[in-house]
């Protein structure tokens, strides 16, 4: 009977995504407990219930740690990005419309991808700071894990695109900028990959705990409105900022084009990822 119980418990632990090493420890402790007296098997609890308790208790902690670790790694990647971005102004690049196609694609990527990464990472961290319970609803864990995963993925894409940009412009830019950017990228990408490992472990844990995932208004903590209306206002605000910065620098036409592109990209991002990241229901 004990062997059958342990087999069932093992199956349930696999089902909720408990890693193999931890599973071995749980089974060894369960076996010791069950063999302690004749009635222990009846009092231990159903395998599905025990496995779910493990996933629920470990899942909340794993998702929180993964989100915080990802945000820290993304902070370093953000510093690399900022240094490279500021340095680019002094690196003597030729005008972007003369760049090779790959460099132009990389430029578009290093403009859009970090914004997705920043928004997803910040919202993951906000959700972690907002939730206090030892156990979180499964839907809420999914939200945190997805936001963390998207933030890391787009962070890695940003760093890779920055590396491609530096390589593509290496003959037309200051050597120090190319070297600085490549060294920064070479440090940031492994760190982001390292941060993705706990995120992957957290995403594998699948407890069954009822509860609502909420949306971005729960995270931001201010008045609920139509999410599309809110996204539209944010997009217009971002577009205006881009336009005003360019206008101050004496290039309002370029600013209008880039501002419109920024606003459309923001809305496209909201349409593509809004539901997946629980920005809207």
């Amino acid at each position, binding site marked *: 009977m004990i062997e059958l119980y342990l087999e069932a418990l093992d199956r349930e632990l696999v089902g909720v995504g408990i890693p193999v090493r931890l599973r071995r420890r749980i089974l060894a*402790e369960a*076996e*010791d407990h069950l063999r*302690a007296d004749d009635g222990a098997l009846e009092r231990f609890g159903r395998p599905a219930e*025990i496995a779910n*308790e493990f996933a629920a208790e*470990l899942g909340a*902690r794993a998702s929180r740690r993964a989100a915080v670790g990802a945000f820290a790694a993304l902070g370093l990647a953000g510093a690399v990005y900022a240094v490279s971005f500021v340095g680019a102004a002094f690196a003597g690049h030729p005008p972007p419309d003369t760049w090779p196609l790959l460099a132009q694609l990389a430029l578009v990527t290093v403009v859009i991808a970090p914004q997705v990464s920043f928004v997803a990472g910040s919202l993951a961290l906000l959700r972690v700071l907002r939730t206090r319970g030892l156990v979180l609803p499964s839907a809420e864990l999914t939200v945190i894990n997805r936001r963390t995963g998207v933030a890391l993925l787009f962070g890695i894409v940003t760093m890779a695109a920055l590396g491609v940009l530096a390589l593509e412009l290496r003959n037309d830019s200051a050597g120090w900028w190319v070297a600085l950017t490549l060294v920064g990228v070479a440090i940031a990408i492994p760190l982001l990959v390292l941060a993705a490992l706990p995120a992957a472990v957290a995403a594998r844990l699948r407890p069954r705990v009822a509860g609502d995932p909420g949306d971005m208004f729960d995270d931001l903590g201010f008045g609920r409105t139509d999410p599309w209306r809110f996204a539209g206002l944010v997009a217009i605000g971002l577009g205006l900022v881009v336009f005003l910065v360019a206008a101050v620098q004496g290039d309002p036409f370029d600013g209008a084009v880039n501002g419109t592109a920024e606003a459309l990209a923001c809305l496209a991002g909201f349409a593509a990822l809004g539901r997946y990241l629980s920005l809207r229901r």
Partner: protein
Amino acid sequence: MKGHVDLLLLATLRRGPLHGYGIVEALRSASAGAFDLAEGTVYPALYRLEAAGLLSSSWTKAKGRRRRVYELTNRGRGELARERDEWQAFAHAVEAVVT
């Protein structure tokens, strides 16, 4: 009971190291059978407390089987004192109202 599991487990381990079964037995005995929970549900809480640095654990051998023994860390002792103070203040307040 769910909301007080941490305090109960930390308090049970204050007298010395115990394995999972021993903790459940001590809990049942100290509460005169009032805390009769699904025994397996103690382990997830023990793992969480260990991950939080409040408990440490190590393998031993007993009756030819591997046995995981848990004990309070210094942080765990501090947390126990804090949670016990909170509980006593709450219990006194409830007692003052209902008696």
